[in-house]
């Protein structure tokens, strides 16, 4: 799936009741760009990522996705991006394979096993996700976001709860697909920010 994606975020702001999270944030990216969003806790990193993904509406401003210069309608967007965040829980009573089969569309069994192997979850693939450790669940989340090889990858703190080995696996996986994917990472960790060419700090943008 090597079409050229571009993403245009135009002056988005978000307010919860009286509390203003961020204001007039704009950036535009194309396939191959890796972009980080950083900022202190509670500055709205995850909220912004969800707004970009279309899972939440922004108070003002708009986000538009383009595939080969063609605008993707709002309700079609979810087919074109992968998303992983601590707020996204796979089904505990299903096994890892069942979760992946559910999330993926038309992926052959071998690719799934290969992915599980890559992320070190192959031995646990038939166990219920409910008994997974937080680190294993986080690896599964990353797999779920990448399984359909989406054109746009949105990751919210991808290496949270991961051990060093887990981090290496995740970073090399991101490294591998950077050329043909538009990646956005919301994080506070330096080694995750180093993965990206450029990015913004919400705290600075506001004032």
């Amino acid at each position, binding site marked *: 799936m090597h079409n050229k994606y571009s993403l245009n975020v135009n002056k988005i702001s978000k307010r919860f009741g009286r509390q203003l999270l961020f204001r007039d944030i704009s950036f535009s990216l194309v396939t191959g760009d890796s972009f980080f969003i950083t900022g202190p806790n509670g500055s709205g990193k995850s909220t912004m990522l969800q707004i970009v993904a279309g*899972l939440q509406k922004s108070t003002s401003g708009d986000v538009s996705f383009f595939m080969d210069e063609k605008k993707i309608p709002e309700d079609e967007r979810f087919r074109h991006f992968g998303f992983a965040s601590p*707020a*996204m*829980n796979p*089904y*505990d009573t*299903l096994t890892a394979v*069942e979760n992946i089969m*559910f999330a993926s569309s038309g992926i052959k069994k071998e690719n799934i096993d290969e992915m599980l192997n890559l992320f070190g979850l192959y031995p646990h693939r038939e166990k*219920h996700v409910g008994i997974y450790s937080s680190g294993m669940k986080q690896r599964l989340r990353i797999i779920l976001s990448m399984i359909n090889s989406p054109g746009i990858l949105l990751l919210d703190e991808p290496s949270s709860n991961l051990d060093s080995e887990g981090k290496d696996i995740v970073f090399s996986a991101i490294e591998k697909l950077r050329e043909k994917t538009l990646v956005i990472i919301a994080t506070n960790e330096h080694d995750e920010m180093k993965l990206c060419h450029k990015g913004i700090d919400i705290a600075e943008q506001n004032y």
Partner: protein
Amino acid sequence: MQSRIIKNLRKDFLIEFRNRSALNISFAFAGITTLSVSLACGGASLSSQVNAVLLWVIIFFSGMSGLSHIFIREEEEKTALFLSLCSDPENIYLSKLLFNIILFACITALVTPLYLFFMQVVPVYILYFISTVAAGSLAVSSITTILGAMVAKAESRGSLFTVISFPVMIPVLWISIKLTADSIEGGAPPEVRSILFLLAFSGVIISVSYLVFKFIWTEN
């Protein structure tokens, strides 16, 4: 489109049958209510009107105990976000609707024979009776699906589901009770027109819910 609905449906069935607590509660509730009602009546032979009313009260409240769980589980286990990423609202609605219809068909299939057996009721027009109960239970499950989606988003769930379902359910309950009473008594000949009314009502509710479900499901 179909494959996504089937995938959702398979997932829901897998989960519901893995931890069967919710299913067991719904079936247990239906069974216990039927038995306790017939026990309370103590073998008294009731008029077909009262029988019809009792049967539909049991069916309605069995629905109230089981038909919102499919949405509430997604909210409680916070898997709603993951589901929104894998499927668009329309397919989510259709798969949840099918699940509710199948689940409620089983519950009604448990309650009705149990009721007939314990209350020694033999409807005169058997086929008419069965088609009324089937059409009625289809209407009940199609209305409660969209209302279950609403209640799942609310905080204090408790009996909110019953409070908001009952007024919308009144036309269905009324028609079903009248037809069931006629079919048991055998007085009036079978009125296919009324059964078509029940199906039409479910059809209207399903099509409107299909259009407006995304306003309930996606945050804004």
